[in-house]
């Protein structure tokens, strides 16, 4: 996996990418792990901060970081890094429960 180095972006970088997301949905359209309707506004919001709802949590766990979402992004963002971020948040929120 040549692009695996791009998976890990620092926190400020992930936030910056989330703010640059134009919500075109291209990443979700190609995602092989998305099993239920999740809209990009909710996903972005919950990746950034706040409580993580159940569908988004399920999606975050189902994401296996295949990277299919990166190429279609018109703005050149890395949804895989954002999902990894969401996984980290999920992990922490689980711990706090």
């Amino acid at each position, binding site marked *: 996996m040549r692009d695996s180095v791009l998976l*890990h972006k620092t*926190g400020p970088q992930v936030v910056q*990418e989330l703010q640059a997301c134009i919500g075109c949905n291209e990443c979700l359209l190609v995602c092989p792990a998305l099993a239920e309707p999740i809209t990009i506004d909710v996903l972005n919001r919950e990746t950034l901060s706040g409580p993580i709802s159940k569908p988004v949590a399920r999606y975050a766990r189902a994401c296996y970081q295949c990277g299919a979402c990166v190429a279609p992004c018109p703005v050149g963002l890395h949804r895989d890094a954002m999902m990894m971020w969401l996984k980290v948040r999920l992990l922490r929120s689980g711990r706090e429960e």
Partner: protein
Amino acid sequence: MSRENKAGISRSYVESADIVIVGNGIAGLTAAVEARQLAPDARIVIITDQCHPTINTPALKQFATGKLEREQLLAYPAGTEREQRIHVIQAHVESINAQGKYLCLEGGGGFGYNSLLIATGSKPNGLPAATPGRDFDGVLTLHRLADYLDLRRRLCEVSQAVVIGGGVHAIETVMGLLTWGISVHWLVRSATIMPRVLDQAASSLVLEHIQRAGAKIYLETEVAGIVGRVGAVAGVITNQNQLIPCQMVLVCTGTRPNAALAQHCTEPMLCKNGILVDDHLRTSVRNIYAAGDVAALKNPQTGSYEPRAQWYSAVLEGRIAATAMIDDLGGRQSDRRGGSQSERESSSFGVPWHATHLGELSMLTVGNPLYWSDEITTLTDSSKGCYRLMALAGDRLVGYLSLGPKQPDSLAIKRIVDDCLPVGSIKKALLKGTLDARAYLSQRRSEAAHDLVTTGKLPDLAPVASTGKSASIVRVLSATASLPAAAPVPMPGVKQGQPAAQASKTARLPETGPLRTAIATVPVPAPMPVPAPASLAVPAAIPRYTAPLAIVESEEISPFTGNLPAVARPAASPSGSKRFQPRPLSQGSARGRASSGQKLLPASAKLPAINVNSKEKRPLRNLWSYGERRPVVTNHGGGHSKSDTARRTASAH
């Protein structure tokens, strides 16, 4: 509600709010949400004449091609406004009374404000007023949601369409229509497209792609008139005396800022190609701010004021404006502690950045790629159907243009330009579009950290810090922090204590997020020359500002290793401390991890040798739920069922 109060409004009866935002585009709503986070008790009102909630306007082109439904266009989850206690009023604002600090609404109402944000966006230029036939049914501009709804309704009865305009929006429209199987005639006024962004070679590459996709391109052609039949479009006559039959004409001739409010303000508001704002988004009128497409910002590279009609800059501007408005509300208190956040924000504002798809090509422009002058050297690469152009000033990148099937790490390149990082070592990778931005940036950080450790001093860390700037840019930004001196109206927003405060802000700038801890632990040899030392220690102010970003800054992924942070293991501290104990890889089953860790306790002698190895492996096991091994997350209550669900979900695919 005040707007129902038709006549005889006196100031005391007018409703008012601390923060009033005109327009509910992304800049307006972002500012409102951000302001709510900074000031939980402020009264925040959005006044808009738009009949729908804030949408992802760039996604409208996906909406036009049928990839999205209307519900998926929402920029914020439905109900965000209510949840954030942002009051939305449906009204049209006609004028601003800056002395009385109130707005006049259409129909005679008024609305008072403490801080006002103008975020009215832009409007399409359309065809010149003299063009015959511009009012026929079927002549559309694509700008608002209503326009796209109109387009989608018409698509089924259109077989030929004419697109007018030579910009990105026109290209996106052409490509969108082609996906519906409509034959598209594209009229471009000049001989190349986007002359300010693309050079000759890049322009012809794009044109070639679009031609291959099936569009018919007419260069150096303008519309002379539109012919219609019984009120609807039947064709377009060009200035080449050619008649192109069509059922629809799409006018993509650019937009201009919707700055009517600047003209209808009782105090003169500087406005030229957008409302002029400084780096805190203050207009020339006190307590009035502007953000989004309507605001004209100074380009740090060229020094000219220009609107940045792009999504990302609108979001950023909304956030900066919110910070500035909250500073306003805080009054005197904000003089002391204020600014630092907005200063930091503005320093991350940086150069223009635009990334999009032009059909199958990805286009990225950062800074000013066509910035020709003596000390600028330009490198281009046009192999394998790609085109890349770099403008270099010595070792610094000042402009970057990339066209190709793959979008490079666009925001990382923006950061390289913004922070003026040296690109000598990555020139070739940039030119080939194979830059590994993460490796480069983390290497820069390690070098800086190495300096910090070896010299014991705080070096010029700004260029490597995540939100920092190089000293030169900081200087430029603080110099441009107010509107030009030639401006007829001085900036009233500049308060008495400002120069001193400004100096202290500038001095504090390099202390960016990741470095704060270092500053706290490493004794700084010489205190910085700060005129007002009290401003450095305002503990009460800090939580208020950092709160919204707290999660982010604490959850930093280690820049040195690229690994995810070690997750604290709550109860199982005995085994937890041995979590990184070496063990043969064959024993590495995560399922038996906790117990095997205990079993392997005596092996601690080998710790240094294998530790590196286990560090590399760890995050993969911890976080990926598709593997057979149980993730470590699950060894506490409730975690089991969740990961089981996850595994089931994953296996379902």
